[in-house]
């Protein structure tokens, strides 16, 4: 009985997070428009987009794997949502070492997409996949380096424990570990695939990369994946560095992080893929490694 309630609760959370992510995306589009001196779409525009995509018919298909690609992508992000503490609430699955599992699961979605788009055999998709996987080498490393000092400091590899132990406002990890937080924020920019790191989905260059052959409902699933990924990715940084709190605080924190990312994205042009990875391995990685010094000074 208890497990059924837990599963229902999780389904509810997943729906809520998807809609929240879509609304974040809509507000992000509005903010970008205002920065560019435009009026911008309504904040619920992304929800309409997804509804429309699910209402389309006779999409192109290029084989079984092509159809399953978006499903794997969505499954991967929904599974990583199980490990993420939303504010101070207990995640569905929590054990010692779940940070590593969470980070592995974050890779499942891009890989699923790569498998699916690969079967489409469009050259643009192939370039997009190659760029996406190369990009992952850049930001994953920085993200790990920014989280490891916290795991050493609290002597735990359980995300839930890590969030619980850091406490509320004045005890945020952000203040002692500000260097790691800064590196994490730069990694977030690449993880969300926004400018200056939007080499993967570069609409005017490689015709939206891995998504080039997808249409209709498949594209709708990919949009949902992006929406949930927004919450999961900002949620990781918010949980790790910005303390714990209720669901309301969690929404406020993830939204502020999302706003920072969107505003940076609105004013930057695009790196080339080589430049992007080089950038990650130079500056944020050095900043992240300097973050380890806090362990010696502050403890």
């Amino acid at each position: 009985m208890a497990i059924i309630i837990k599963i229902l609760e999780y389904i509810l959370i997943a729906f809520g997070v998807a809609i929240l992510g879509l609304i974040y995306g809509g507000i992000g589009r509005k903010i970008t428009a205002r920065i560019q001196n435009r009026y911008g779409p309504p904040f619920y525009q992304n929800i309409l987009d997804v509804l429309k995509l699910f209402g389309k018919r006779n999409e192109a298909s290029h084989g079984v794997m092509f159809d399953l690609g978006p499903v794997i992508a969505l499954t991967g992000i929904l599974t990583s949502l199980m490990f993420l503490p939303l504010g101070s609430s207990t995640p569905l699955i929590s054990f010692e070492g779940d940070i590593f599992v969470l980070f592995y699961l974050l890779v499942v979605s891009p890989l699923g997409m790569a498998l699916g788009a690969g079967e489409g055999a469009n050259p643009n998709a192939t370039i997009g996949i190659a760029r996406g996987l190369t990009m992952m080498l850049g930001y994953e490393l920085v993200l790990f380096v920014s989280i490891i000092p916290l795991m050493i400091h609290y002597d735990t590899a359980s995300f839930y424990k890590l969030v619980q132990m850091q406490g509320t406002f004045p005890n945020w990890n952000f203040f002692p570990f500000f260097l790691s937080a800064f590196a994490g924020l730069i990694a977030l920019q690449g993880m969300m695939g926004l400018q200056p790191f939007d080499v993967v989905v570069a609409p005017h260059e490689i015709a939206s990369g891995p998504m080039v052959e997808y249409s209709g409902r498949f594209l709708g699933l990919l949009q949902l994946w992006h929406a949930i990924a927004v919450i999961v990715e900002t949620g990781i940084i918010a949980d790790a560095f910005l303390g714990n709190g209720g669901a309301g605080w969690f929404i406020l924190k993830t939204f502020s992080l999302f706003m920072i990312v969107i505003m940076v994205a609105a004013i930057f042009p695009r790196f080339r893929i080589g430049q992007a990875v080089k950038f990650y391995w130079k500056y944020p990685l050095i900043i992240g490694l300097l973050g380890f010094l806090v362990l010696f000074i502050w403890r």
Partner: protein
Amino acid sequence: MGLFKFSRSRSLWMMHFCTGCGAIEMPPTMTSRYDMERFGIIPMATPRQSDLLLVTGYLTVKTLKRVVRSYEQMAEPKYVIAFGSCTMRGGMYWDSYNTVKELDLYIPVDIYINGCMPRPEAIIDAFIKLRDMIDKGEANAWKNYRDNLDWYKQNQAKVFDINKWSAKI
């Protein structure tokens, strides 16, 4: 069902097939001055993802092949807006040997915009008209193409063959 219809008319992803001079009217329509994103219309990179095909000017026979192919790659329901007098009756290319004069013979068109070229105001006006047409269920050109596929294919084949014939001479 009403929600799907509503979202269909409020979120049109468009692909502009940039032929002729109409393409130059699109940047102002997209950017700060006229801003079509207000109506949920954004440019998409590929025909697979888009709902709305903009044919922005005259079409040579060679380009027409690509337009037909792009149009057939789009997922239904799909809409077409044709720009300027060239797509209606040939315009200034009336007596040209390798342009098509009536786009409507080869792919179904929902809305024509008059002018040479139409201003961004006219384009925005056409977008709103199309939105209203979708709301009322009148934008059914894609159904027309599916039902009369033979007729359209015949017309296309005719013009493609003529091209082959004239190349021989």
